[in-house]
């Protein structure tokens, strides 16, 4: 039976690794460069899928893996961040205030506007940030997965039947010349 690469295992591993890195102080700052760590999570997921599959992985599978890795990375990142904050003795309220001040420093009107954000409290804001990160990390995870598939998958894509011909796809979605068996992953 052909291996197809375990999507859940690949996504969990990538999500945990890059989620942890995202929560580590200074290292997590790499996410400030267009979520580069989350792009890496998606790319690593694709790499693991490629290595664990005997047949070329599809872009859909890579995208799904990247999305899953991005979603998994969010709670891992937040737990890691909290853990480091406690270990390092940080003041979460002070950091929250600093983040708000930086975001609104350019305008007194903006500072007044962000008073509403302060009033919501750290806990609720972290919940909202978590929701926002799930959305953003999902998107960048998909992007990373697609880029990873484009970079790491060197085997020819599986031929697919032309729609409307009435020819159903074979069970394993691969049919080589004269119906031969699929190629074995050379790696």
């Amino acid at each position, binding site marked *: 039976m052909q291996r197809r690469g375990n999507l859940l295992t690949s996504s969990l591993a990538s999500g945990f690794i890059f989620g942890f890195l995202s929560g580590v102080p200074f290292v997590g700052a790499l996410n400030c460069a267009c979520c580069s760590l989350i792009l890496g999570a998606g790319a690593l997921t694709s790499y693991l899928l490629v290595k664990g599959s005997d047949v070329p992985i599809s872009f859909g599978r890579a995208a799904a893996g990247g999305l899953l890795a991005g979603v998994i990375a969010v709670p891992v990142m937040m737990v890691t961040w909290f853990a480091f904050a406690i270990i390092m003795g940080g003041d979460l309220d002070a950091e929250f205030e600093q983040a708000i001040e930086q975001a609104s420093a350019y305008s007194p009107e903006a500072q007044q506007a962000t008073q509403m954000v302060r009033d919501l409290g750290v806990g609720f804001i972290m919940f909202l940030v978590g929701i926002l990160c799930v959305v953003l990390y999902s998107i960048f995870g998909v992007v990373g997965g697609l880029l990873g598939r484009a970079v790491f998958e060197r085997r020819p894509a599986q031929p697919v039947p032309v*729609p409307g011909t009435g020819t159903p796809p074979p069970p394993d979605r691969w049919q080589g010349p004269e119906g031969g068996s699929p190629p074995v992953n050379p790696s």
Partner: protein
Amino acid sequence: MSTTFVPAPRLVAPLLSLLAAAACALIIAPPLLAGAGHPGEAALVRLTFAPLCHQIPERTFHMLGVPLSVCARCTGVYAGVFLAFIAATFGMNALVLARRRAGAVLAAAAAPSLLLLILSASGLIPDAVVLRAVTGGILGLGTGACLVPAFEALCAELALKPSPTGG
């Protein structure tokens, strides 16, 4: 038998261009909103981009005295991605290279940014905001060029999946 809504591959580049245009619009929104008398909305748009960018004012372009949503490098990246999607919409043949050598294209696109990072960190060249934007733009062009064929292939795969009802 296709899923409910999957764009045809030929529509992928235009749709991506629209999404990228929306993102670029959000990037320049804070100065425009602040200038129109909506500082609260401007601040909220900037906060939305906070997980994606450090937003350090000294490394960010300003318009009407107000910083954009993201730093100069990120602005360049998003602009480069948008230009790549626009180029794909008009069928530029340069994307053929991105289809076949995605790794090499991405590496070449990232090289200027890495070079600038090394040279500016070592003090050999000034860490100019414009240079950050230009190198970010090159990175965005390469990334966008690789993303278009990837999304086209994804839509083609999704379009050929049988529907859950078997119809």
